[in-house]
């Protein structure tokens, strides 16, 4: 019995040692994404190295997982049903937290670099990053709604899983390109990098990518929220001015 406990303790020490033994040193090609008028998506390069105090442990192959997550907000997923001969929204499930953007980039297939338990603990894969609790009692299969959410957002590139997207050199240097789509919500994007050994997370690193509207985009957005009346009047003035201007120009052309 004592021997078993001793083995367990030494095992635990070994894992905690190995956790400290490998650390992430990280760089980002850009810590800020500026949304300008001609913004057409962006690509962020995440690169880094594994820092070691001792030779690499042999507790399994090294894996790297990079996730980037946009701001999470609750969304409503509705399902259409045929009633009275027409298709209309029937059941709805509120998903408590769904990131507006989510990318998982790994160095190998996800189920090889990460165990299910570790995925649950760190909320890495897309279904784990979405939080859905408390679906209404009358809806039998609430999981279908979350699946639909993932399916729709994956189709529009808002959710991405790129297995093998992280390039790993000599078990030390890694790099990954994260593609941000053109339809981007502003906010703090959380970037997380996990080092795994045999599916267990041995080190992690968090950083924030600041996605902001700048210049005219920023100014218009702020005006529309802070001084909505003025913004509305400005929109109308522009509309009427353009209507009058075009009419005048056409009249001149006709003469």
């Amino acid at each position, binding site marked *: 019995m004592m021997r078993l406990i001793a083995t367990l303790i030494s095992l635990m020490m070994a894992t905690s040692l190995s956790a400290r033994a490998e650390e992430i040193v990280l760089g980002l090609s850009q810590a800020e994404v500026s949304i300008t008028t001609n913004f057409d998506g962006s690509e962020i390069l995440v690169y880094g190295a594994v820092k070691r105090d001792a030779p690499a442990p042999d507790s399994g192959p090294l894996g790297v997982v990079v996730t980037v997550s946009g701001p999470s907000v609750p969304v409503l997923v509705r399902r259409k049903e045929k009633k009275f001969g027409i298709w209309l929204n029937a059941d709805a499930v509120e998903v408590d937290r769904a990131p507006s953007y989510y990318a998982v980039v790994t160095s190998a297939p996800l189920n090889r670099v990460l165990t299910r338990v570790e995925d649950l603990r760190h909320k890495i894969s897309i279904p784990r990053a979405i939080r859905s609790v408390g679906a209404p009692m009358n809806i039998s299969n609430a999981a279908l709604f979350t699946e639909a959410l993932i399916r729709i957002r994956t189709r529009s590139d808002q959710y991405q899983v790129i297995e093998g997207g992280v390039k790993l050199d000599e078990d030390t240097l890694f790099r990954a390109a994260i593609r941000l789509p053109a339809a981007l919500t502003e906010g703090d994007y959380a970037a997380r990098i996990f080092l795994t050994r045999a599916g267990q997370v041995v080190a992690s690193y968090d950083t924030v990518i600041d996605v902001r509207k700048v210049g005219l985009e920023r100014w218009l957005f702020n005006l529309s929220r802070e001084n909505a009346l003025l913004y509305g009047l400005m929109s109308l003035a*522009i509309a009427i001015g353009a209507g009058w201007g075009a*009419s005048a120009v056409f009249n001149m052309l006709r003469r």
Partner: protein
Amino acid sequence: MERMQIYLPIAEVSVNAFLVLGLGGLVGVLSGMFGVGGGFLLTPLLFFIGIPPAVAVATGATQIVASSFSGVLAHFRRRTVDLRMGSVLLIGGLFGAALGIILFNYLRSLGQVDLLVRLFYVVFLGIIGALMFAESLRALRNVNKGKLPPRKKHNWVHGLPFKMRFRVSGLYISVMPPIAVGILVGILAAIMGVGGGFIMVPAMIYLLGMPTKVVIGTSLFQIIFVTAFTTMLHATTNYTVDVVLAVLLLIGGVIGAQVGTRIGVKMKAEQLRILLALLVLVVCGKLALELLLEPAELYSIAPVELK
């Protein structure tokens, strides 16, 4: 050049500038030709290119202000605007729009507003398109036979009290029917997110008996104010007016409206009406099919309303 993307600050999506300019132009041509704001076509088209529905409805209204303004100036020059009739319709219109917003918010609290908007479109576009089509066919046949189109000078409308003289339209009728038309159009404008010209133009022709030439300018005049009112309501309550999108649409729209007005002048009233009827029926048919056929994706995502 081939990918001229523009990021819209309020809609938070990136769109192709030329695509939006083209949409604005197309709707502008219709606006100038028929005197309808074109909202019934613009709003669904904006959904289709990926603009969030709330932004599409609000910004569509802004664009209609611009193209209608451009159009009404052309009609003022030709003296085909009945200002008196326009003002009476407007009084009803603003009242109706306010009523419509109340109704809209009530329907939204029931959670079926999408369906109701769609049903409104199908029912109203269907009825009006069919009526107009039948009427214009009859008129066209009569013209071809060399007969004058029958003008019903006296119907029940002429028996109502509070009569007023509308000189430009050549009418002496009660103000009650125009106000009622205004209210109805205002309600529809608020619920369907359109100017309401496609309802008002036939109502003016068939119900009030106004001459077709005056109808278009007068309806544009009324539409400007109702859509301006709607724009302000959306901008101050929902923050959904995207001015960048509006500018792109209206650059295309004002040019289109001028072109459309010129085309409209060259065509016979009956031909104009039959074209508008066909267009209304096509849009109606497409919306009806969407309700009747099984959609490819049964699920949809909507933001949770903050209470």
